[in-house]
Each structure stands twice: as structure tokens, then as C-alpha cells.
């Protein structure tokens, strides 16, 4: 990476982080809502641990993987609406009039998602552990989960950037939230894949990459170090990021028609 590109990414990252930190309305719901659902689910569904083959006797530990995914979904909205606002207000045109490179713009914008992912991961995991969840992989597992959470948050954030560049509308980006939530519900969110009895649901959940991201978090929480599960989680996050950035780059070229 050249010095000028590094400098551009750095400046835009700084702005993205400042914007994120100065909008409590972005951070607080992404912390409170997933933790609230965690409390409800771990209380209401703990009977599921009695099912033969359930991987742990603590439903809280099993369910603790879910907030990381829900937090990542918030990053779709936050990264996307921030960029959409830049488009709507003409700030993107201001940036387009500088020697800014497209790659720097997209990378810089995701810096806010990194911070959000970091804060979310530390808060979810700390509160989960305080509430009695297990962390089979120990202290190193804490770092692995934070790293995975940041990766997933950034990957999903890139989809938010694509949606913003494609539509140019904050409302349209926010309209994606329920769609992504359906993806989450059609996964192994509530039960392990092998315990899902309904055939069509199990088929969809098996094909849904979100199930494997959840499994990566759960492997660290429940089983300890399972390199295969963890690598699959990081791999899926990397693939989503690559696809998201590719789509966002293409949409940026269409959006920014500067000569």
C-alpha cells in the first residue's frame, strides 16, 4: 500500500471512528437489543439442553453466539446509512473532488465497523461470562471471539456499503435489516443443525453460512479449540468481505462517475 493510500485510508478511518463514537444511537441499540434477546432466549429455551445430543448443559453458553451475529447485522445498517447520508448530503461529491482513491474510501468507511465490532464483542462476551456462560477455550478464546466478531462485523458492513452505493438511500439500507434478520432466524440460531427436526428448515439452515459463523463462535465457547470450525468461520467472514467489497467497488464506480 502506497504512503498516500495509507494516509487517505487513515484519515477516512479516523472520520468513520469519530462518527461512530459520536452517535450513541448507533452503538447503544446494537448492544442492548442483542443482550435483551439473549436474556429472553436463554431463559425461555433452556429446556432444549435436555434434548439428546445437545452440545452443552448451558443454553446461555449456546445462545451467546447469537448476539455477535445480531451485532454484525447492525453494522450493515450503521455502515450503510452513514455512507447513504454522505451520498444524500453531497459529502461523497466533496470527497470525489479530492485525489481520493476508491479503495481508500471503502476501506476507511469500514473502520467504524471495526470499532463497533470490537466494542460489541467485548461487551457481549463480558456480560455473557458474568451471567454464567462458559468459555471453554480460556483467555485465548476471548481474543479469538473478539477477532472473529470484528471480522464478521466488517464483512457484513461491506454489504451495507454496497447497499448504500447501489440505492443512495438511508431508508433503503435500513429496509435490509429485516431481510438479514430472516437469514439469522433461518439458521442454527436456536438449535444445533443436527437437532432441527423439520426437513426444509434443516436444509435451509445447513445451506445458510450464518449457521457456520454461529458454529465458529460456539466452538470456542463450548468445545475449546476446534481449528476447523474456527477457520471455517473466519473463511466465511473473509468470503463475505471479499464479495461485499467487490460489489461495493463496482457500485462505487457507477455512483462516482467522475471522469
Amino acid at each position, binding site marked *: 500500500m502506497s504512503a498516500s493510500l495509507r494516509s487517505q485510508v487513515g*484519515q477516512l478511518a479516523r472520520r468513520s471512528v*469519530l462518527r461512530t463514537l459520536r452517535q450513541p444511537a448507533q452503538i447503544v441499540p446494537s448492544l442492548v437489543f442483542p443482550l435483551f434477546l439473549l436474556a429472553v432466549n436463554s431463559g425461555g429455551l433452556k429446556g432444549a439442553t435436555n434434548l439428546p445430543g445437545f452440545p452443552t448443559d448451558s443454553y446461555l453458553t449456546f445462545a451467546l453466539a447469537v448476539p455477535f451475529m445480531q451485532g454484525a447485522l447492525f453494522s450493515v445498517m450503521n455502515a450503510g446509512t452513514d455512507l447513504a447520508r454522505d451520498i444524500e*448530503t453531497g*459529502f461523497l461529491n466533496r470527497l470525489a*473532488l479530492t*485525489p481520493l482513491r476508491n479503495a481508500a474510501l471503502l476501506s476507511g468507511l469500514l473502520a467504524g465497523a471495526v470499532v463497533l465490532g470490537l466494542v460489541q464483542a467485548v461487551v457481549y462476551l463480558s456480560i455473557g461470562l458474568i451471567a454464567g456462560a462458559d468459555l471453554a477455550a480460556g483467555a485465548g478464546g476471548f481474543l479469538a471471539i473478539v477477532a472473529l466478531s470484528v471480522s464478521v462485523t466488517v464483512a457484513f458492513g461491506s454489504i451495507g456499503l454496497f447497499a448504500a452505493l447501489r440505492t443512495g438511500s438511508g431508508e433503503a439500507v435500513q429496509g435490509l435489516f429485516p431481510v438479514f434478520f430472516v437469514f439469522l432466524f433461518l439458521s442454527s440460531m436456536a438449535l444445533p443443525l443436527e437437532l432441527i427436526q423439520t426437513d426444509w428448515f434443516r436444509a435451509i439452515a445447513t445451506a445458510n453460512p450464518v449457521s457456520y459463523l454461529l458454529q465458529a463462535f460456539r466452538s470456542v465457547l463450548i468445545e475449546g479449540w476446534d481449528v476447523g470450525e474456527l477457520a471455517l468461520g473466519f473463511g466465511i467472514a473473509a468470503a463475505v468481505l471479499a464479495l461485499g467489497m467487490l460489489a461495493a467497488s463496482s457500485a462505487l464506480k457507477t455512483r462516482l462517475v467522475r471522469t
Partner: protein
Amino acid sequence: MAVENATGIEVQALVREFKNGPRAVDGIDLRVAPGEIYGFLGPNGAGKSTTVLMLTTLLPPTAGSARVAGFDIVSEGPRVRSAIGAALQEAALDPLLSGAEHMRLQTALHGIPKAERTRRSEELLARVGLSRAADRKVGGYSGGMKRRLDLALALAHRPRILFLDEPTTGLDIQSRTALWEEVARLAAEDGVTVFLTTQYLEEADALADRVGIIDHGKLVAEGTPAALKAEIGRPTVEAVPHDPADHERMVAVLARFGEPAGASPKGVGVRLAGGESQLAEVVRALDAEGIAIEHLQLHAPSLDDVFLTKTGRSLEGAEEAEEEAEEQAAEAPSPA
């Protein structure tokens, strides 16, 4: 003919068409000399902003060509951008960042060396009177402060050409005057070429060395404000009848003295074919017809008269007509 000094603008047959729409810009030719303030005057929807977007490389033209600072706007976009500064129609600022943070971002993205950034930022913020507000978030700035910050940002990298798209729209008269002074100073002292779009006649009149008048995407007149007004030559008289019922009779009487001209809704305007000396005759004729006069005023030729002469509409009337047309279009049912 190329612009010899690389601080001017040369536009030839520039066209921009949008899908399923009319030509927003329809074959414009113009030339702005180095150090000149060029006022691009026209009503809303006339094609001013589209022209600016093309000249600043943010929108490719459909046809025609333009060179800005000596560079082609299509094939040399990055070089054009490095030579220009622009404050586009809306002050595009981030409400969550402070003025100083905006300056830091802008100077850094333009590649100004780190050691120079703070000094340049402070210098520009001081110049536009925002030093004390530099650390406040822009969300709390007034419209005038935002416009001044916008101007400072446009100047961050010492551009040779400055594009200002309706820079004073919505500003109070004090803020407007302050901005005019700064723009005039930039041109006079720093030799910056300024391309300024406006819908305010007085702004073009007060600030521009030369004015181009655009309507429906076409340049309908161009010249110095004085020359354009001299071209019209004749003054306008506007009379308001004491009794509104006399309005039609007043129209008939004034028609004897020249062609109709724009006037207030209650008044009647006429461009005096025989010049100012006819004013007394106008008064006598109205008196002879028994029409009492509520108000009588003689107007020297204005840029609005120029616009009226060239387009058949007054500039303010044109804006109302555009808005009315837009409203009608919005209310009309979609074709099946």
C-alpha cells in the same frame, strides 16, 4: 482556441442529456478569462448546476468539450480536480465533525504535507471568520457559517479556479455580503478565477466581471453586466392604479409608450420606447384618462430586463413557472 493561461475555462458546444428527460445543458459555448469572476445566472432548473458538475468532472458530458485550467474535463479529470476548488449547491458537510476536523480531512486528502496542514487550516478558518467556532460540531453552525466553511474547504489546496454553485442561496444579507467580499478578494488579490452560479440578479450584478444568462440549457446572453443592460438601453416605468378596477385601462394607456415589462402583481410595467423623458407624458396620459396613481416608479435597466428581453419572461416569473410546471408534473397521473 485553447486557453493560453492555465487558469481559465473554455467550453465548446457542451451538452448533457439525462435519460427520458430534456437536454439539461444544450450546446453551451463560453470562455472565462484567468482571474475573472464569471456569473452564471438563470432560474432554477435552467442547467446551471449540471454545467458546474460537468466542469468539475463529476458528470461526464453527453457531447461537446471543455478545458478547465488547460485540461480536458473528460480525458484529464484528475488534473482538472487538482487545479480547482468547488463549493457545490448544498454545503456538503458532516454535522458530526467540527470545522477544524473538516479542514484536517480536506487538507490530508489533497496531499498537503502534514507539517503544513494545521497552519493552512487555521489560516483559512481565520480568513472566513470561523476561528472561534473551529472546534464546534458543524451540526450547530448557522447556514452562513456552513457556507463559509464550505468556501474554506474549497480553498484548502490553493486552487487556481473556484466553482461556487449558488453559494449564497438561503443566506441573510449580512452573510451574503461577507461571502461576496471574500470572493471578490480572492479574485482581486489571489488571482483566482471564479465561476459562480446564481439565481440572484443583484449577486451577478455586484460580483461578476461578466455574466452568462442561461435558460432551458441554452446560453441566451453573455457580457459585462453594464454592457448587457446598455444593450437593453431603455428604462422601465411601473405604475400601480389607486383603484384596482383601473388596471386594464392603465395597461391600455401605458401600451402607447412601449412594450410591456415585468411588474408587481398589482402594477403595470412598460419599457419606455422614448427613454426617461417620456415619464412626464405617461403621468399626463394617465391623468387625462382619469386614472389615479397609487405608486409610480422608474427602473433603470436591470439584468432581469435583459433576461426578459432574451427569454420573454422575467427571472422571478421564470422560477415560479418552473415550480408550477414541476408541481403539475408531480400531480399528473403516470402514463399507463
